[in-house]
């Protein structure tokens, strides 16, 4: 029984990773790819992690830690890439709606570092 649960979770997780991969491959611009990559992989690793935590004796804690690390870091990383790409030249970014950040101009430069 446990094997089956582990298998289903693993397949589901792997499926999400595959989805993310397909998204990254198919989506037309960077931000769209990021939407796919960040969310689906995080979910995918969570599911695989649960599977692993069940299946591997004595491995639960480490898997939890690993998944936690991804949960903490993945969105920050996505934010950081997105922000950098926004400024960088040569990145295909399609903003057909509004762009409040662009309206802001260089104002941010002054206090963005004010962490």
């Amino acid at each position, binding site marked *: 029984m446990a094997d089956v649960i582990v298998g289903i979770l693993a397949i589901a997780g792997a499926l999400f990773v595959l989805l993310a991969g397909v998204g990254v491959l198919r989506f037309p611009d960077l931000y769209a790819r990021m939407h796919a990559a960040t969310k689906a992989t995080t979910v995918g690793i969570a599911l695989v992690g649960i599977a692993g935590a069940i299946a591997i004796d004595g491995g639960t804690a480490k898997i939890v830690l690993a998944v936690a690390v991804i949960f903490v870091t*993945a969105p*920050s990383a996505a934010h950081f890439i997105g922000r950098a790409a926004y400024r960088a030249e040569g990145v295909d970014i399609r903003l057909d709606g509004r762009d409040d950040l662009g309206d802001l101009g260089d104002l941010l430069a002054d206090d963005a570092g004010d962490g």
Partner: protein
Amino acid sequence: MTRLVRLVGLTAAWVALWSDLTVANLLSGLLVAVLIVGAFDTWRPGHVIVRPVAVLKLAGYFVYQLAVASLVVARTVLAPRDRIRSGIVAVPLRGCSDAVVTLIADAITLTPGTLTLEVRRTPLTLYVHALDVRDPAVLQNEIRTLEVLAVKAFGDDDAIAGLAVDDTSVWWSR
């Protein structure tokens, strides 16, 4: 409080890494934690206060959002359609610590269709990329909900008090 949270967290991580809850591991973990906290006392993201019940609420909301996000992504990947209007929206927050802002921003990134691109400190504003910006109010509500849950879970008293202030007009007027 912040320091205690750090110590406990690091000790817990140590014990988890050894995957063996023994006195020796606890003591050595505490030692390591004390050393690290003492050696690198450069924590700047502000006070961290943990309110367990509120944390659980936040977690529940977040997991729900994540699940939705996954389905949304799955749908978009499998049946791509032209996105109507994607764009970047400024979302003002009320005052809270760096840690909580980060939490909110990260959560936004993991929820459907949104991605935090930038934070402005004064006035505290998140710039969020959304796949669909036709109705910013929906976005605002989601983020407002998230903000409230997060501040209640980890914010200090001042931040919670600040939630009462409604300064919607500041950003919505645009």
